[in-house]
């Protein structure tokens, strides 16, 4: 018992994983009963693939949000930044839609993400405006730019790229799962760099980190820049689903990214957490919404029901702790 408790201690993602397993089982049970055994067997891989591909933009955004939160900052502009990059990505292929052009466009897109992140970072750590305010303000700037680039939903992507993304199943597993595995691997490497270690130190106690010689300002600007770059990848994942974009889509996804991070066990206070939790957080969030969709509730109560479930999931670790405390007494 002691050993079990010791293992679970400091593992912020334990509860999120349990929640995730419950949610995903319910989800597939519902899909199974809805489709019937035969149809389900034929289509489950396709369903999983579709689901994960749908979650991928938010997964990337949540990871960007997680590293900013671990660093002790917050980025409320991340969704709209993704909107800007997405709008840019789908409006560049009027003449040439070759692979080469696509790669060129995507490189520029990452540049846009990094620059926007640098803007946030400079205002937050050099000019010292609280991150909550700075990024809330820049979120409107980004949203305006996105509307300017792409006033109406639409745009197009090179067909070779979208087909490749949708139809390839390396080793029989959906593309989305591979991408998630790659992300986890990259995260593991990132965490073990000096930069990663200092990210946690600054989020844990900025003053102590400074006294120990960490260059807090430079580091925080870099973290916002990395978050911007990840947002560019999120934009790519988003436009590849449909081959088009909508400038309004980013706004709602910002708060979703924060919820997913917290649902994944990374607190907003900084200094602890990781990127694996948020991945599960996003999938949990997505599957909860799926389940509510299956449950045949009226459309207008859907947001209410899924908000209640999310609130309950967020609160349950604290509830469990409270109950455990009472029992021990």
């Amino acid at each position: 018992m002691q050993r079990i408790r010791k293992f679970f201690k400091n593992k912020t993602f334990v509860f999120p994983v349990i929640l995730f397993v419950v949610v995903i089982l319910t989800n597939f049970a519902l899909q199974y009963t809805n489709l019937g055994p035969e149809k389900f067997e034929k289509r489950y891989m396709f369903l999983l693939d579709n689901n994960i591909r749908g979650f991928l933009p938010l997964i990337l955004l949540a990871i960007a949000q997680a590293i900013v939160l671990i660093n002790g900052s917050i980025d409320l502009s991340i969704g709209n930044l993704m909107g800007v990059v997405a709008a840019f990505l789908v409006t560049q292929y009027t003449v040439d839609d070759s692979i080469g052009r696509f790669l060129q466009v995507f490189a520029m897109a990452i540049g846009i993400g990094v620059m926007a992140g640098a803007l946030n970072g400079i205002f937050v750590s050099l000019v010292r405006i609280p991150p909550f305010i700075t990024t809330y303000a820049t979120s409107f700037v980004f949203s305006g730019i996105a509307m300017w680039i792409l006033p109406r939903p639409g745009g197009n992507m090179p067909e070779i790229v979208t087909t490749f993304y949708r139809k390839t199943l390396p080793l029989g597993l959906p593309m989305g799962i591979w991408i998630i595995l790659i992300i986890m691997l990259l995260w593991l490497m990132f965490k073990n760099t000096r930069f990663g270690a200092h990210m946690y130190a600054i989020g844990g106690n900025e003053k102590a980190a400074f006294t120990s010689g960490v260059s807090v300002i430079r580091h925080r600007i870099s973290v916002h820049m990395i978050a911007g770059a990840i947002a560019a990848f999120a934009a790519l994942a988003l436009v590849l689903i449909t081959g088009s974009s909508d400038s309004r889509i980013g706004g709602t996804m910002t708060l979703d990214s924060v919820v997913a991070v917290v649902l994944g066990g990374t607190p907003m206070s900084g200094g602890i957490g990781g990127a694996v939790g948020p991945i599960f957080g996003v999938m949990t969030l997505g599957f909860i919404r799926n389940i509510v969709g299956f449950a045949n509730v009226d459309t207008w109560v859907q947001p209410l029901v899924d908000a209640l479930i999310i609130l309950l999931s967020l609160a349950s670790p604290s509830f469990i702790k409270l109950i455990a405390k009472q029992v021990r007494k």
Partner: protein
Amino acid sequence: MAQNLTSIDIVKHFAGVTALSNGCLTANSGEVTALMGANGSGKSTLCKIITGVVAPDEGQLLLNGNLITVSSPVEALRSGIAAVYQELSLVPSLTIAQNIWLTREPMNGIFVKYREQRKMTQELLDLFSDTVHTSFSPDTLVSELPPDEKQIVEILKAISTNPGIMILDEATSSLDSRQVDRLFKLIDEWKKQDKAIIFISHRMSEVFRIADRITVLRNGQTVGDFESKKVKEKDLINLMVEKTKNRLEQKDTIISKQFKETVLKVTNLRTQLLQGINFSVKKGELLGIAGLQGQGQSDILHSIFGSIRFSGKIELDGKDHKFKHTSQSMAKGIALVPGDRAKEGLLMRLSILENIILPSWMKYGFPLNSGKAKKDAAKTSKSLKIIMAALNMPVSSLSGGNAQKVVLGKWLQRKPRVLLLNDPTKGVDVGTKKEFYSLLKELCATGTSILFFSSDDEELVGLCDRVLVMRDGKIRKELPKSELTLTNLISASVTSNEELSRATN
């Protein structure tokens, strides 16, 4: 390598208050230099200047004969000066290993070599083996450690930089005797390695055990530099106490007053800091609480006021009270004037009027009888001589002394029976202080009982009817009016228990 650090005539002002006016200190390699002084004599400021935490206004720092400027802790480290800070510089959410090697991680390309870091940490932890709990491993989170082990990590972090000059600022204050023994053994080794050590401690016995030389500071000035073998404890205490006459006039209060009625009685009060406190306050008495900073003085006041958790008995007029919320103690006529006025005492953006009536707004009913409130506030501010443009000006427009008067005024408005003062004269100018003292005397004459904690030992001596001297969460000595002198007070707060009992017997 021989190391020699000299600071010459360091001057530092903080917002008009002179913290250091002539800070001289020499530390030689292979020697332990102890830095001593009473509260607010400038020891910590001098250390902070040497380690680059604060910048000096004037003066020079010489390292091995060369003039140096240290503008940040990192630069100090580069010149081989490491400090164990009094306020901890650890990141609670990181492990011991990560904290010790922060910014100096062993690297393998771009990756941190965690295994090696762990091994290096274990070697450091072994220096303190057997004096700590078994859970003290490189992977333990700092947030899970008790204060003494945090302090040890802080010491190890300084050691890991292999400095030429090591500053220990109150590093022993949270360690137990075995840990102190171990630290002293390490210090002996450092001396052999030709390191220079600056040791700051309030514990006289420790200073005499470890120090080769003793430098004494008083009111921001270096007033003495001795070889520890050639100096006596009594002489040091005399030197720490200012010889000039007390600025407060004592003549009218020399005769001990007689108090009868016990108002407040505290029995076996315990908190995290307090280890069983017993005392009582009589009606109209001005009882002082003295001692070095952080010995649990504030905890006594906050326990009585009901703003922290405690165990023990607090009786008011012979009735047992355990206040769980400040509103309960306020209803019984207790008021607390907090120490940090910006944080706990005032709503800086709101007006003087709003601040004054804040604790007693219920009196003015609903809807607020603003006419009466204004009249009462005007009366209070007049009697306190608050210098202001108008009652509706924000408190942030006032000077420190006047702002403190507002804090006092807001509680006097409630006409308290027991007034708790938590270091109220910190950063207050001399003129205001004088007014403040006469006000306290007036209050006592009308029957208010006052419990007065101050870090200014002089004002306690000049003002109080009786003073309790605290050390390590206990009352070490009670000084009645007849024995109340500055020398007795400081001697009681710095002398260790054994010496104290020897001296009194």
